[in-house]
């Protein structure tokens, strides 16, 4: 890209340039997926002011959400409307979804604990322990919400991009086919999230030595079809609108310019090698926290940390998957592998749960989840590390 073009989007729409290029560039070393989510909103530059002001509006909405939707006062799963709103926003614009999430977290943290009815046994704990339990449980709930608001749309998009729709579908029908595929992917991921949340949201209650309420579980367990419907509709609308602006909007060049700049930044980031410990440690920490809702005792957490460490090391360094296996599975589109992994995981978990159903603890579910996790790591071999030395990448910058 030449210098003149590079400055075109920055001067034509500086706010859109900030959300789509400058902020992601800053976030990349710390939170690459969050950086990608912000860059995802660049397509809305096709409409004047939307890419610049939508994240600000979403932030304001997130800050006011507690007043608008009082049902989210304890935990957000109590409000179907809130979850539908964040799903739709995140799918339509990653930047708006991230800012909505940020606004919600700020207000939720500030009001954490006020007006809640803690049990006596919890109140008798030392203050520091109460503080750790309260904010630790909130951290788990925010990570889970982050999966929905940040990761879900990007992963769905990535899976759809692998399917070569153009080879199988007539030109006129391609946008509709892509919209249907993206809608199905988002719907599938939202369903998975809803089913997982039945257990994974439990720390919000159990860490406060309380019982999960029916009100917090019911929306994700029984009314998930509404969330899936919202995801499918938003995803379909996004692809059709994006296709329309790419071909007809006068500002399509600006969108391409922003994406090209983002792509140039991201290629340099991808080229930077990171140590195996630097890759494995975040993965282990995150999964250990995410699965906290399935733990019966601290030994379960230890088991998860050890197993995930072993799996991650096996996947990346020690005893890497055979090359023929990695090459074979990569020929299959990711969305198909995802469904196969889910079905295989269900089958394995079913065997585990059947055997250990009588224990009436969550341990069989935890073991089933770990088996599913292993299947996923098997079906999604880690890509080879970049062959581009970091120094060269920086020189190229």
């Amino acid at each position, binding site marked *: 890209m030449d210098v003149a073009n590079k400055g075109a989007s920055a001067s034509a729409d500086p706010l859109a340039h900030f959300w789509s290029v400058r902020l992601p560039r800053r976030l990349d070393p710390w939170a690459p997926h969050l950086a990608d989510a912000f860059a995802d909103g660049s397509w809305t530059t096709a409409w004047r002011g939307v890419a610049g002001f939508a994240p600000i509006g979403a932030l304001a909405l997130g800050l006011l959400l507690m007043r608008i939707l009082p049902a989210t006062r304890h935990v957000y799963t109590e409000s179907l409307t809130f979850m539908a709103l964040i799903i739709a926003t995140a799918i339509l614009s990653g930047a708006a979804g991230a800012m909505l999430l940020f606004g919600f977290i700020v207000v939720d943290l500030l009001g954490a604990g006020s007006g809640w009815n803690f049990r006596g046994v919890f109140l008798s704990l030392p203050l520091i322990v109460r503080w*750790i339990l309260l904010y630790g449980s909130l951290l788990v709930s925010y990570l889970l919400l982050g999966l929905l608001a940040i990761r879900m749309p990007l992963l769905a998009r990535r899976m759809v991009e692998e399917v070569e729709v153009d080879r199988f579908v007539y030109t006129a029908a391609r946008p509709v086919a892509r919209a249907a595929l993206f809608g199905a992917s988002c719907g599938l991921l939202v369903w998975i999230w809803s089913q997982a949340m*039945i257990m994974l949201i439990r720390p919000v209650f159990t860490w406060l030595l309380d019982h999960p309420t029916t009100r917090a579980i019911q929306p994700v367990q029984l009314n998930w079809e509404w969330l899936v419907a919202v995801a499918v509709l938003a995803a379909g609308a996004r692809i059709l609108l994006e296709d329309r602006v790419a071909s007809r909007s006068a500002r399509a060049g600006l969108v391409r310019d922003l994406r090209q700049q983002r792509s140039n930044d991201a290629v340099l980031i991808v080229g930077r090698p990171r140590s195996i410990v630097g890759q494995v440690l975040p993965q282990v920490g995150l999964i250990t926290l995410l699965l906290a809702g399935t733990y019966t005792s601290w030994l379960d957490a230890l088991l998860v940390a050890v197993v995930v460490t072993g799996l991650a090391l096996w996947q990346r360094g020690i005893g890497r998957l055979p090359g023929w296996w990695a090459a074979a599975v990569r020929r299959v589109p990711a969305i198909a592998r995802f469904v196969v992994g889910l079905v295989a995981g269900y089958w394995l978990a079913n065997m585990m749960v059947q055997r250990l159903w009588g224990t009436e603890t969550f341990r069989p579910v935890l073991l089933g989840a770990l088996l599913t996790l292993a299947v996923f790591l098997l079906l999604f071999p880690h890509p080879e590390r970049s062959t581009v030395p970091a120094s060269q990448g920086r020189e190229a910058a």
Partner: protein
Amino acid sequence: MKPWVWWVLWTAFAFGIVLLVPAVALADNCSGLLDCFENIRAASAGAAAAGAAAGGLGAGGLGLGRGSNVPRDAPTGPSGPEHERARQEEQRRRMEEEYARQQEEAARRAQQEAQRRAQQTAADAQEQTRGITDLTGRGRSPTGPMDQTPGGDADSPGSNVERDDQTKR
């Protein structure tokens, strides 16, 4: 980001997890499987979903690369691990091409320099020969290096007389 900042951050994160893990032991595992799931099928689906959410959505371990890094002129396009590899390969190829081009350029310059020196040497040798010829009173060539030597023809294009005039102007 400096390496030590990275390590401090992740040590803090790991320490936070160690702090939180005992909290799990304190947790009142209030309800058994039956409270959350009515039957084995629902519990199995929940387990598979939790594994998929943690492994697929959670840790970014699917190896599908990054979300919106690939610029798309059309709404969709080639991507995924193949595209990521291709992108890295392309970048490496460009760097190799650039390196090869620089090497080629350096070789070309060296060759030119060698040729120039060879010509200069040849010219010097010819000049010496011509000087000897002049001294011995033999004929002179209408063109050639000797025309530009002091004492050459003033009307010839490269004569020193004309150069001196230009310098004065």
